[in-house]
């Protein structure tokens, strides 16, 4: 009788501990998620207010940024720069990252694939500022030769096309959009490669054998048949990678440098994230407001990419 009583007590204690423990987990979960909603709420409340104050949505998306003496302004040049560099960086990142991922995932037994896997694992965790510094250093070394032997003659040859071509191709400055895009691509490549590799590694063996058994070349088996099996994961990886690099600031600091005017991409180029970094630290209310507006715009872009990725994935 007493023994039974005791067991009941123990059970009761265990139930209490159970509820306390689960409650603690729930509390920790809330503590981890609350900042997310606070940040999103803060950015949108202050950002939408700022956009209205600075001249409405369209004026904000296309206008030049405000100087400390202005009442109105926008983030037009930075938005163009961000879209251009993100698109280029994402294209390059997928173009290199996808085949690399296939190699790492499919040729697991090759020695060099292991080396590549280790390299990609390291690169995905690389501090982004170091990537920016690296591209800056390479750009400083390569700029003169590039301009003299490649881009100078090329822009001369292309000059009959029209003046607009000089906005895209021409002798590079030390800071330019292409260096920024290269830095972004360097961040995106390992990300896409790792997810592609794990997607390819998770294909069932029978499917792989069937793909090879259809008798095509290995290229077709890998990049046509098996790609269909993992296309969903790869597209999601590409979209999430794009969202990731769209908000990157550190790699652009010394590569794109930032600009507040519509300017050729061969020279210093603005980016929304760079403008937030610059404007939020100024003491002028109008520029801080424009930083909040810019943050709302950037967050919207990233959330849209995210939602598309979720729906597709």
């Amino acid at each position, binding site marked *: 009788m007493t023994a039974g009583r005791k067991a009941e007590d123990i059970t009761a204690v*265990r*139930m209490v*501990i*159970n*509820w*306390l*423990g*689960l409650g603690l*987990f729930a509390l920790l979960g809330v503590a*981890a998620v609350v*900042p997310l909603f606070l*940040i999103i709420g803060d950015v949108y409340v202050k950002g939408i207010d700022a956009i209205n104050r600075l001249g409405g949505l369209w004026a904000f998306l296309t206008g030049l940024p405000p100087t400390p003496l202005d009442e109105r302004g926008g983030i037009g040049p930075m938005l163009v720069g961000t879209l251009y560099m993100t698109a280029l960086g994402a294209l390059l990142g997928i173009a290199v990252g996808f085949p690399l991922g296939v190699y790492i995932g499919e040729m697991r037994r090759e020695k060099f694939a292991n080396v590549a896997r280790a390299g990609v*694992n*390291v690169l995905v*965790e*690389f*501090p*982004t*500022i*170091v990537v920016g*510094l690296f591209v800056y*250093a390479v750009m400083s070394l390569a700029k003169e030769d590039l301009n003299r032997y490649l881009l100078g003659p090329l822009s001369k040859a292309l000059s009959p096309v029209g003046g607009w071509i000089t906005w895209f191709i021409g002798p590079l400055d030390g800071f330019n959009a292409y260096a920024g895009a290269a830095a972004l691509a360097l961040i995106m490549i390992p990300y896409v490669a790792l997810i592609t590799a794990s997607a390819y590694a998770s294909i069932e063996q029978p499917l792989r054998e069937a793909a090879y058994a259809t008798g095509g070349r290995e290229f077709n088996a890998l990049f046509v048949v098996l790609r269909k099996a993992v296309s969903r994961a790869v597209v999601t990886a590409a979209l999430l990678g794009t969202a990731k690099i769209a908000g990157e*600031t*550190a790699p652009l*600091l*010394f590569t794109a440098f930032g600009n507040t005017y519509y300017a050729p991409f061969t020279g210093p180029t603005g980016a929304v*994230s760079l403008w937030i*970094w610059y404007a*939020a*630290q100024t003491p002028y209310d109008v520029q801080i407001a424009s930083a909040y507006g810019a943050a709302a715009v950037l967050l919207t872009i990233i959330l849209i990419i995210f939602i598309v990725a979720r729906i597709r994935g």
Partner: protein
Amino acid sequence: MTSPYTLFTAGVLLAIMITPYAAAVIREGYALVPKPVEEAVYAIGATRFEAVLIKLRYVRNYILGGFFLALGRAMGETVAVAMVVGGNFVRFTTNIFESGITISSLIALQFPNAASYQYMVPALFAGALLLTLFGLVINAVAIYIIQRGQI
């Protein structure tokens, strides 16, 4: 605390930024607990909380590895930290309620005008090297820990 730009602010910021990442790593390990183990735990009459504790013990290498991966990522975090850390690089401080600096934010804040100091450019590149080496070591440790206990 005289100004909001302190090491403590940067720490809170990093905690918020790193939590989802560490959680993702641990969740990845948690999903790998074999179903029979889970069933066995419940079969001996464990409550849900006790089952969670046992499963957490099962994935402890993921928790430790996730800690190191998050540490590596937090160390490389640049711009967000540079905005709140205060940028004080002239005086060493251990008081977390004073403004300080991290390697990555030092690079971000000082590189634009590094040329006006005699040794700043090489110092910043050396800082980048140090950051990279730290990152390499921490990541190697994390991957070793995670793979050592691979089930």
